[in-house]
């Protein structure tokens, strides 16, 4: 009997603790901290070095980090009213998904550095998010396989006679993050500025041609670089930043800027965030030219603030999405089109891939 009572006491204790934690959470006042959430790995290391450490030093605010701000996690936090995050770092597609649900606080532009905002493309000023960088997905290939004749376009990717070897592309699931349908249309001769609205029928017809040569339709962003390094494929669609990191580490790979897909990445504040003021301070800091310049020298994403390129040598600037010579030869993904069509494309994709 005694052990039963002991057990009951422990269970009551657990229940009380869980209940207390649930009630204490939202009641806390704004603290001297800000919680930012990004994607981990060497990318988050770079953000920490370039932005968060010096921000903490300058303001005395503690920067608390978390990883993987997936839209469903933001949705769950907002819906249950237990919002642990203050700033989230999202791709255009992810931002659009949460934006449609009304999951963000409005950005108070009066609280952000006016000088920096002037130097950032107006299209990146959303009512509930600000662009802080741009990333690209494009053709990446092994330079030890294609030495003299190098692939330069998606048409070359489709040309299996001139550029033989196994290939990989992303499965266009969800918000079409890997630009697979766009690549097919470009290979079929559609002009960069005539891509959207996507001709889905035509894209799938073109994909029929390359299907036998694709060893893997990957579903996570780390797969293409892994397959390229392991020589599973000779070329693939991959992220520019990750490709250059491989090259920095000595892998024989290169990235093709021509016809690459660029997409903005946003900083946003989840609805009900506890440290809204601090969130705005951190966002403002991350947009300033000097800080963005520091970031551009550490990592390979395209800085949003034009003036940041004054701090980045041109040899390195050339490897970034927003470098003036790189932008005109890329297209910007239309997240709104994908937001409206992702479910239908997903359905069609599932049928097509099993055929």
């Amino acid at each position, binding site marked *: 009997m005694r052990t039963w009572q002991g*057990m009951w006491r422990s269970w009551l204790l657990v229940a009380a603790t869980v209940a207390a934690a649930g009630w204490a959470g939202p009641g806390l006042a704004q603290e001297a901290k800000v919680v930012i959430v990004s994607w981990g790995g060497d990318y988050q290391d770079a953000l920490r070095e370039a932005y968060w450490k010096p921000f903490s030093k300058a303001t005395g605010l503690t920067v608390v980090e978390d990883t993987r701000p997936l839209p469903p996690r933001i949705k769950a936090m907002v819906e249950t009213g237990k919002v642990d995050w203050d700033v989230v770092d999202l791709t255009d597609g992810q931002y659009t998904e949460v934006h449609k649900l009304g999951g963000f606080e409005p950005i108070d532009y009066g609280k952000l550095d006016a000088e920096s905002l002037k130097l950032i493309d107006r299209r990146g000023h959303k009512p509930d998010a600000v662009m802080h960088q741009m990333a690209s997905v494009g053709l990446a290939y092994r330079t030890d396989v294609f030495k003299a004749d190098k692939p330069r376009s998606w048409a070359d990717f489709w040309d299996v006679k001139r550029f033989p070897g196994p290939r990989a592309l992303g499965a266009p699931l969800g918000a079409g993050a890997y630009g697979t349908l766009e690549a097919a249309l470009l290979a079929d001769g559609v002009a960069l500025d005539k891509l959207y609205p996507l001709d889905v029928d035509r894209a799938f017809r073109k994909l029929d041609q390359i299907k036998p040569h694709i060893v893997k339709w990957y579903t996570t962003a780390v797969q293409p670089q892994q397959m390229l390094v392991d020589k599973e494929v000779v070329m693939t669609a991959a992220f520019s930043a990750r490709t250059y990191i491989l090259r920095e580490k000595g892998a024989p790979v290169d990235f093709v800027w021509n016809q690459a897909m660029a997409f903005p990445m946003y900083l946003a504040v989840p609805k009900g965030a506890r440290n809204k003021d601090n969130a705005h301070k951190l966002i403002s800091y991350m947009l300033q030219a000097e800080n963005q310049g520091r970031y551009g020298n550490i990592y390979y994403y395209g800085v949003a603030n034009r003036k940041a390129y004054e701090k980045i040598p041109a040899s390195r600037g050339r490897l970034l999405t927003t470098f003036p010579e790189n932008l005109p030869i890329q297209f910007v993904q239309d997240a709104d089109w994908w937001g409206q069509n992702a479910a239908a494309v997903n359905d069609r994709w599932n049928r097509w891939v099993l055929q």
Partner: protein
Amino acid sequence: MLPLVPALVFVTVFFVYPLLRMAALSFGAPDGPLGYYESILRNPVYATVLGLTFKTALVVTGLCVLLGVPTAYLLASVRGTTRTILLVAVVLPFLTSILIRTYAWMAILGRHGVVNQALLTTGLIEAPLPLMHNAFGVYVGMTHVLLPFLVLPVYSVMTGIDGRLLRAAASLGATPRRVLATVYVPLALPGIASGALLVFLIAIGFYITPALLGGPRQVMIANLIEVQVLELLNWGFGSALAFLLLGATVVVMVLFDRVLGLERLTV
């Protein structure tokens, strides 16, 4: 009954309640309560993928039985340090994450992986064999992950088999093969059945290993659920798919019960 209460509360709070919430979500389609289920039925993809999922799970279960039963027999028939070492060898992979084990298989089975390199250098093959990004890779990876779930229950039943029964059979003139077939295997069957059921149930929910080691056609129903929940944020449709999987699983359990009898499964 009193000691049961905490367990019941636990199951209700952390399993039954979420399941009911999911059920509510799955009946919340904008075009009527059965909207999500109707669109699942209308689209042949889901039936195809469910079929592929069950086929994969069946093959993996079969491989686990083929490899696991002799392993368990070996474990049960040795003693002392040898048994400890072998048991540790079976359990050790549990301590490594599935993701890491899957990546290890990628290094082994890849076009330039260990196996292909060895075969190419010895001149046994001229071009790399396709060992990965196809059904073969998925079977290998999943069998590796799930094997301990079969070995352990079978081993535990086999150690409980009374050796005197085997000797009695032998003393009555049965050949070793006859002893195995008419005494040992029937006694071990509950362990094999429960191990196989465990492997099968875990296998139908797999998605990481097939996503990394499989090719275009190795789509599991869990992959489709993942996309609905994580990418498309359509939790209602994702829930409906999950209930479809749950329903199909229940059907399998009922069939299994009819054939073998679940209450006989003692571990």
